[in-house]
Structure formats: structure tokens, C-alpha cells
């Protein structure tokens, strides 16, 4: 197993990733949580760089940081006044779940580090070959998953539009099914 010698970058990147991830899940202000996702994703991109997955560094930054995160931030800013930031942002079970997650993480890490991984002894290819291979795979051997992923995106977009589009015409008379439902208000 060929190890990576650069210890310090790894420690920095993992600390950045995990630290900001913790902030994301714990911070009260939801917009801050959204912004803290940025260093987290960048940390993951850094780890990818250490793994010499150069193409995915770019993808991570472009798609996660550039697209998904921006989408999230828009949503967060639009809805930030919905949640009162002075109230706790986590539910009642946060302590037991925290303990559970720590124990579980320790267990998973223990099992994974204890496993004898089988190495195929292949050498890592230079970045340009890697990317060319990936490109060829996506139109060759893995054309089908690629196409299906695009169908998935299409379906997701259609779905998102259907759900998000506000209906222009005034609400018609309620359907019988609507009328029958108890109209309870959230407390």
C-alpha cells in the first residue's frame, strides 16, 4: 500500500473539513451554517487533491461550491427569518443522538482501520491520462450510468419545478379530499 508522505497538509485539510462540518451541524444561525459549508467542501476538495484525484478537486469546487452551495445559500437567505435563531436549533434528542453518533463513528472507524485491505498493486496514472480515461469511460463502458444520471437530473428538475412553481390561478374550490382533512395549525 503506497502511503502519502505529506502529513501536515492531510492534518490541516481533515481538521478544516471536520471542524467546519461540526460548526455546520451545531451553529445556531442557519446562514452561518450555510457559509461554514464552504470551508468544509473546500477541505474535502483538498483531501481529493492529496489523493491525486485532480479532476474531482475541480468537480468538487465547481459543483458543490459553485452550484449546490449557492442554491442552498439562496434558500437559506430567503427563509432565514422563518426560524427564530434565539431558540435552540436542534431537537430534544440531540444529546443521545450525539452519543450514538460518536460511538457509531468510533465503531465504524475501528472496523475499517482493522480490516486488511487488499491492494491491486496498480500504479496511479498521471492526471491527464486519468481524466482522458474517465472521459472515455463515460462515453464507452459507463455510457449507460452517465445517461441515467442525466435522466435522474432531468427528473429531479421536472420534479423541483412542479413542486416549487406557485400556482397562478386563484385556488379553486377545495376538493372534497381537502375539505375533509382537519386543518390543524402547527404550534
Amino acid at each position: 500500500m503506497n502511503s502519502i508522505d505529506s502529513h501536515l497538509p492531510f492534518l490541516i485539510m481533515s481538521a478544516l473539513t471536520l471542524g467546519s462540518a461540526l460548526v455546520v451541524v451545531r451553529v445556531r444561525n442557519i446562514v452561518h451554517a450555510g457559509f461554514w459549508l464552504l470551508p468544509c467542501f473546500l477541505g474535502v476538495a483538498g483531501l481529493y487533491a492529496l489523493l491525486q484525484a485532480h479532476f474531482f478537486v475541480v468537480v468538487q469546487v465547481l459543483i458543490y461550491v459553485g452550484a449546490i452551495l449557492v442554491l442552498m445559500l439562496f434558500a437559506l437567505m430567503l427563509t432565514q427569518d422563518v426560524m427564530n435563531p434565539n431558540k435552540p436549533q436542534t431537537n430534544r434528542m440531540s444529546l443521545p443522538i450525539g452519543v450514538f453518533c460518536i460511538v457509531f463513528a468510533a465503531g465504524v472507524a475501528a472496523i475499517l482501520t482493522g480490516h486488511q485491505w487488499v491492494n491491486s498493486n496498480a500504479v496511479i496514472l498521471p492526471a491527464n491520462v486519468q481524466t482522458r480515461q474517465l472521459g472515455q469511460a463515460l462515453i464507452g463502458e459507463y455510457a449507460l450510468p452517465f445517461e441515467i444520471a442525466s435522466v435522474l437530473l432531468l427528473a429531479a428538475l421536472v420534479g423541483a419545478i412542479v413542486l416549487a412553481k406557485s400556482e397562478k390561478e386563484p385556488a379553486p374550490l377545495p376538493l372534497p379530499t381537502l375539505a375533509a382533512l382537519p386543518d390543524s395549525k402547527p404550534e
Partner: protein
Amino acid sequence: MPIIWLIPVAPLIGALIAGALALTRKAEKIAPLFTIATTLYSGYIALFLHRGYASSTWLTIGSSYRIALDVNLDALTFTMVCVVTLVSALVQLYSIGYMANENGYARYFAYVSIFTASMLGLVSADNLFQLYVCWELVGICSYLLIGFWWFKPSAANAAKKAFVVTRFGDVGFLLGVLLLSSAAGSFQFTAIAHTMHAISMGELLTPLVSARTFLWLAPLLLFCGAVGKSAQFPLHIWLPDAMEGPTPVSALIHAATMVAAGVYMVTRLFTLFAFVPVVTETVLVIGMITAFLSASIAIVQNDIKKVLAYSTISQLGYMMLGLGAMGTVIAPSVSGVYTTGQTAAMFHLTTHAMFKALLFLTAGSVIHALHHSSDPNDMRGMGGLMKRMPITAWTCLAGVLALAGLFPFSGFWSKDAIFGALREASAKEPVAMLALVVAIIVAGMTAFYSLRLWLMTFWGEPRSEHAEHAHESPWVMTLPLVILGFLSVFLGGYLYFGNRFANSLTGLNMPTEPLNPALAGISTLVALFGLWLAWKLYAVRNLEKDPVTNLPSSIYAFLVNLWYMDAFWNRFGAAWVVALGGMVAWFDRNVVDRIVSGLPAWVCQQGGLAIRKTESGQTQTYAVTVLAAVAFIIVTLLWLTRYLPGSMHITMITH
């Protein structure tokens, strides 16, 4: 394929036609024509065409399990087919009058016809699977017919109760079917009988349990089904409630045929029961308890149908006594052996089907006449119907005497056969001696309550206005009564002389077994005593209302003395009997009922409510469950592999 496959199929066709008529709601009145004709056709095939075997494969599971629709018309099936088609046809004829003004006229006949088809399928089965399917089907028909007047809450509840309670037995039955068929690798009766034999010889391994356990467990599981279906203690509780259904249905399903299915099944599979004495002894003990318990309850009932229902349970207990009596083996049969006890049980099944159907139909005739009354079933509101409904009264008397087992009525011969079998068996099984004594006591009780029923209904003066204005039923109802009355009187003797019944069942040609004079004498005396007591208590008490001073003084004094006796019985005897009956009824209602149907229901209900609480509506709780489940699976596997290293192969797969 031989034409006999039409035996179960013909009534099914009749049912489909009636069902179609019911859906169109036009020409409902002609529905019974089809159902009766098809039922009679089934009987005709059985009577006049060749015996034989027809089979068609329906489904094959795995490599060896073949599920087939078989019609195996042997002597035993022939007997049952005759009983079922005859009673069914007569009941349907009777129903034309009885149900004339009811809603769902054609639907009723469709149900009855489906029932007939399922029952015929049950008795002509040659494999456990078909037996089980038809077993469930007759249960459903029973459910539908008990709840026929669904708008009455009591009927709806009774239907549900009947279905659920019999299911308890059916679970055991299903497990028995699975156990036996998985051991045999087949559902066929013969294959299962051979397997059982091989297991008893130690030549074959059994699934799940050891061979020794298997030999008693498998037949007892099957017997569970019989306990449920034939309303044996402690699952008998559904049958009295089932009287909520139309009375002809009670006559057909809950007296003559379906409730006898348990007896038939044990007879058919008797080879399986004969390996271990504890099995037959269980059958014997259950039969004994049932016979006594229900007879004692019947004494205190006032509802005419309830008396008959408890009487039916008691008589089914008699049949179980016959089955449990491991008497002399008289002949080998297709699937094993016939003993005197089995033959006697089947004999009693046949005669009982006639006179009990008759009794129910006469009760129905009375109820029909009183149907404007608030409680037409209550015997306290009857009396004096003898003059107003003579045919019903006389045929009912024939049925009563047959039930009482009075010489020479039908019941006498078959009851005596059971006593004979018990006496024979007592040499081998000590408990049979006790059973014989109990059976004789029950015979007295039976005579008592059956005559009591008749006297309260037909004797004396009318005790209500409705009874006063009662009229005889139309001919479609009285004709079946006359036919069944005739059979109730003569069928037993006819089948007894020349040993006709046993010879037909076993295919042998043996001379008539002479009656055991002591046994016949005792049973006759006991029956006479019961009748006499009923006569004294009921016929005379009614007269007491009228001045009886016109009687000769000596007889009067005698009566007074008897009255003294009566008071004594009332204060001490009857009070005890009533109290005992009441206690048994209370125990029945509050303990047996609760334990059998109450406790598991309660546990399930509470369990459901408890688990339901986890479904809190909180999305994130659900999400945690997903990961917790993953963690749980990992921990379980960790535990299994850590503490049971290499032994997972042994522990996880139980062959």
C-alpha cells in the same frame, strides 16, 4: 376423467347461477331450483354411478408438492356425500318457505350452495391440502351464513366469533398439515400414512421435532382443527352463538355437516392417530368433557335453538368418544384401519345428521310460526303448539326420541354402537371405562332435556298470544320434516340390521353384531328415566296451573308425592343442576372465552398500541431508526461472529 369430479363442482355451478341471479336482483325466486337440482345431481352421481377416483393438478410447489383437486369416492366419502347432499337438498327445499320473505333470497341460496360444494370437496379430498382449503371454505360459508342477517349486531358478532374461534383450532390444523406434509414430502393421504408408519419404525427422520414427539404432536395438531370445527371443549363456545344465523343454516351447517367435519377428518386420518395411545386418550377425554359439559348446560337453556346447539355439541362429544375408543380392528381401509369405535362414530354421525337436522328444522318451523313475537326462540313463550302445528309436533317428537336414544329410534342403534366400542376399549384403555359411565349419564341427561324441549314447546296450553295464533308451516317446509322424521325413526335400525353400515364402510360382509343385552338395557333404562323425569317435571307442572282435582285421588296423591320429589329436586337436585349448569356456563363465558379469545387479542392489541407509539410523526426519529437499525445489524453480526466463531453454520440453519 370420470364424471364423479362433478360431485363438488355441480353445486358450485349452482352457486354461480344463484350468485348471478342475486346480483341482477331479477328472478330471484328461481335460484333455489338450480341449487337444489345441482345438489341432488351430486347425490345422484354418488348413488348411482361408479365409485372411483378423479384428479387434476392445480399447482406444483417445488419439486414434490403437488396440489391437486381430487375426488376420491370411497365408502367413507360415499357415506358423507349421501348425508351432505340429502340434508342440503332438504334444507334448501325447506328454506324456500322459511326464507320466502327475506332480503337476499338468491344470495342465501348461493351461500348454501357454495357451502355444499366446499363440504363435498372436503369429504372427497384425497390430500391434506384440498382438505385444508375446503376446511377453510366451509368456515367462510359458515361465517357468511351466520352473519346473513348482518344488520343485527348480535349476528355480526356471532359470525366473527365463530370465524375467529375456529381459526384458533385451524392454526393447529395448519401446523399439523405443514408438519406432516413436510415429513412426507407430499400432501397425499396414503403417502402421509406411509411416512407416519416409517417414522414409527424409526426409518425416517422428522423435521423440527424428534420422531417420538412427532408421533403424538402431528396428530394432536390435526385434532386441534377438529376441536375447533366440531366445537369440542374448550373451543365449543362459538357454536351456541352461531344460532344467530337462519335456522335452516343451523340445521345444515351447525348440526348435520360442517361440525361433523372434524369427526370425518379424524376418521379419515385415523391411521395417524393410532400410533400412540396418548393421542386416542386425548380424543376420548376431550369427547367426554364436551359431552357432559354441554349436556348439563342444555338442561338450563330456554332458547329452543340453544338447547339444540348444546345438544349438538354433546352429541359431537359422543362421536369423539367413539373415535377415541380404540376398539377391535375390524377391517383394513385405504388409509389405515377401521375400528368398531370409528364405525360407531360414523354411524352416529349419520343418524345424528338426520335427527338433529330434523330437530332444527322443526324448531325453525316453530320460530317461523312465531316470528312476529319479540323473542320467537324462547320456549317459555310457547306451549300448546301440538294442536296448531301437528306435523311439526309429531316429527319433532320422532326427532326427540331419536335424540334420546329410545329403542327402536335411530339414535338408539348408533349410541349403543358407541357404548359397545367404549366397553371393548376399556380393556385396553382404563379411561374408556370412565368415559362409558359418563356417556351413560349423559344419555339420561339428553333424554331429559330433549323431552323437556318438546313438552315446553308443544305440550299444554299456549303461554303467549303468538303461540295461540300459530299456524302450521307450508308444505315446502313440512315435507322435509316428514322425510327426515321417517329417516330418524327407521334409518338407524335399517343400517344396523344386516350390519349394513359397517359392511358398507369396510367393504366386508359380516353378520350383525348382536346387541349386548346389559348395555342396551342400561342405556334404555337411563333414557327412559330421563324421559320420565322430563315428563313428570314439565308435563305435570303445566297441568298444575289447571286444577287437577278431576284426577282420581290415588293418582293425585301419587302426584303430590312426586311433587314432593319435585320440590326436593327443585330445592336440592335441580338447584344443584341449575347452579352447576350456571357455573359451567359462567366458567365457559368468563374463563374459557376470555382465555381462548380474550388474552391473545388483548396482548396483540396492547402490543400494537405500544409499537404504534414509536410512529411519532417525527421525521428525524424515523431517520435515526434507519441508522440505529444498521448499527443493530452490525452489532448482531459482530456478536454472532465473535462469540460463535465458525458455528454460524450450525446455529443459524435449523433443519
